[in-house]
């Protein structure tokens, strides 16, 4: 008989109760500090708000509350701090769009200079502030191996300014700067920009990817990162109902399909080498992931663009092969 494997499938799913208490993540966990507390102005179903809460609570837990944060400009900053309100219960600094990594490095430098070594530094940014305008400062932080844990909440576009494409937007996606008009079929097929792989190329101690579909995995990775020193990088896929055109109740589901289709590889790397991958339990065609999102609706109209869907499936297949994402397959 096959051994029974249990997975947490969502915060409130009934099946979660079959899991051991230590194997699941719950919103009501008593140790939570609610580092970003309720009442902020995120949209309904915001993946970034969910991820930020889980990430920061786990980081606070791991550091026993000895933590300060730096935030890039973006949705997270805007929806959490409309003066005179603030949703932050942790020390929080916002400077600019492209400089979160450098600001965090500066914070870490002062803490070191003053011997306040017990205080840890966490920096947060969206994909724009990470892979585009912030990549220079981030690469510098990696190269110097500054003692900062940097989290990218990747919703694959400039959602705060009205859903323009970013360097993290997938090919064929319909954004306000890649409308499928004329002969254009959404965002161009470039070569892509995998910041986790770029981070690994710097040889920093820890790089991981995660999604909001598996909060326990996300939490574990944050805990791992906070037990280490030097530059650490976590890239979290956070679906955006507004920008992706998904139902706000589908945020976790869409994130799960991104991983289960192989379109978004979930893995962990130490010192530049992949050390673990989150295997796909039941591979789903990319189409199943795409069809839930109106940003890809033009691919499925009449006549649609089956060739483009096929190209996207090819991307997922290559990612599955590269990271060895299928159960039972060696990497």
């Amino acid at each position: 008989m096959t051994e029974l494997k249990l997975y947490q499938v969502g915060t409130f799913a009934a099946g979660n109760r079959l899991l051991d208490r230590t194997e699941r993540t719950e919103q009501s966990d008593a140790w939570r500090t609610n580092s970003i507390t309720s009442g902020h102005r995120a949209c309904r179903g915001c993946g970034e708000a969910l991820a930020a809460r889980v990430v920061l609570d786990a980081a606070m837990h791991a550091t026993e509350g000895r933590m300060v944060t730096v935030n890039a400009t973006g949705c997270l900053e805007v929806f959490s701090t409309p003066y005179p309100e603030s949703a932050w219960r942790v020390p929080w600094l916002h400077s600019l769009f492209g400089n979160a990594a450098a600001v965090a490095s500066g914070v870490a430098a002062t803490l070191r200079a003053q011997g306040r070594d017990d205080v840890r530094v966490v920096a947060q940014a969206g994909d724009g502030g990470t892979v585009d305008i912030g990549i220079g400062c981030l690469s510098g932080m990696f190269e110097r191996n500054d003692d900062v844990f940097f989290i990218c909440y990747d919703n694959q576009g400039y959602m705060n300014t009205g859903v323009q494409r970013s360097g993290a937007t997938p090919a064929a996606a319909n954004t306000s700067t890649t409308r499928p008009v004329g002969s254009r079929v959404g965002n161009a097929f470039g070569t892509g920009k995998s910041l986790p792989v770029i981070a690994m190329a710097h040889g920093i101690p820890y790089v991981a990817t995660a999604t909001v579909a598996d909060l326990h995995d996300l939490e574990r990775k944050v805990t791992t990162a906070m037990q280490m020193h030097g530059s650490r990088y976590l890239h979290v896929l956070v679906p955006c109902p507004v920008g992706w055109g998904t139902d706000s109740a589908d945020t976790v589901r869409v994130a799960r399909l991104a991983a289960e289709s192989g379109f978004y590889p979930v893995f962990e790397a130490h010192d530049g080498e992949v050390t673990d991958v989150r295997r796909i339990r039941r591979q789903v065609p990319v189409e199943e992931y795409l069809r839930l999102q109106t940003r890809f609706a033009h691919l499925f109209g009449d006549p649609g663009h089956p060739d483009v869907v096929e190209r996207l499936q090819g991307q997922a297949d290559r990612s599955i092969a590269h990271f060895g994402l299928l159960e039972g397959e060696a990497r």
Partner: protein
Amino acid sequence: MLRQVEGSRAIAETVARCRPDVVAAYPISPQTHIVEGLSDLVAEGRVGGCQFMMVESEFGAMSACIGASAAGGRTYTATSSQGVLFMAEALPNASGLRLPVVMTLANRALGAPINIWNDHSDAMSQRDAGWLQLFASSNQEAVDLHVQAFLIAERLHVPVMVCVDGFVLTHAMEAIDVPEQEQVDALLPPFRPLHMLDPDDPVTIGAMVGPEAFTEVKYLEARRQLRALDVVQEVADRFYDVVGRASGGLTAPYRVEDADVVLVGLGSLLGTAADVVDELRDEGLAAGALGVTCFRPWPTDEIRAALGGASRVVVLNRAISVGAGSVLGAEVRLSMAGTPVIVHDVVAGLGGRPVTRDLVRRLLTDAAEGELSDHELTFADLDEGLAARQLSAELEAELEHEETSR
């Protein structure tokens, strides 16, 4: 103790004695010798626990300073020219967040064409960034102003830029007295931040402010800058009490009391101007010179008082506000509004062209004889023949293009 030393090295030693927690920088001529000096001093363990960061850009350098200062550290950087432009986005951020970063600006021209030599275009480009801007007239004053800058910055929680002429001062070897450690310690108490990132007292720094409060935030910032007019002078007085040397303050008047013609300028050209003033006085012309040490905030009252008795004022700028005139000229004109004083706006010394005694003498005597324009910008050291030939060639090409495209 007076010592033969390069200006940059003396600045580095002075900054080290101010006990910074973090120095973050990116190299650019002619700032490099300052941060090279600090790198050595930190590595030698002569700056306590100071962290020296050589980062990936000037934008990164100012950003690291912002983080370091917000974490409660005394913070310093140095840059020049293109470097200060590259950090331009972060400059009003530092002032807006009330972080007392101190920065040396080794003044240099802005490209294109690329030019690494001295003028004041870089400083003028950032005059509205919410930073105090102090100009050093000599290397001794440059050194002294750095100590004063930390004092002023941390008292008002406003960042301060110390402008030092690139190469002319930064690379000049001369006798300089670097204030002793005991003197600096007597002047500069430990940094007490206005607000800081602290797990024991979590605060939100850098929230988004909308139309309902933004004006008030900016008004308060403006009032603080004006308050700095008092503090800059108080700090200069206190410096004099402890070190025994007059430097800093708002303006540096030289024989202006009974002067008929006064030259106004920034930075190291004041030394040249003072020499010429002495010569002209010997020859019977009542000349004077006024250095503006504190350019931001602008000391309107002191300028009016110093220049009010003159009949003509020559404002000599090492920067140009293309299409208008000069920034310094406009400031002086505004300050003298309603007085009979005639203000001549002059540009010279761009991109490292030396401001010579002959030039200053010619400007003052021309002004005295009424031969300088009182409304148009004068280019005092221009190769007029070359410029005229190029202008006529360009005009010809433009007309030809118009003709053929009709």
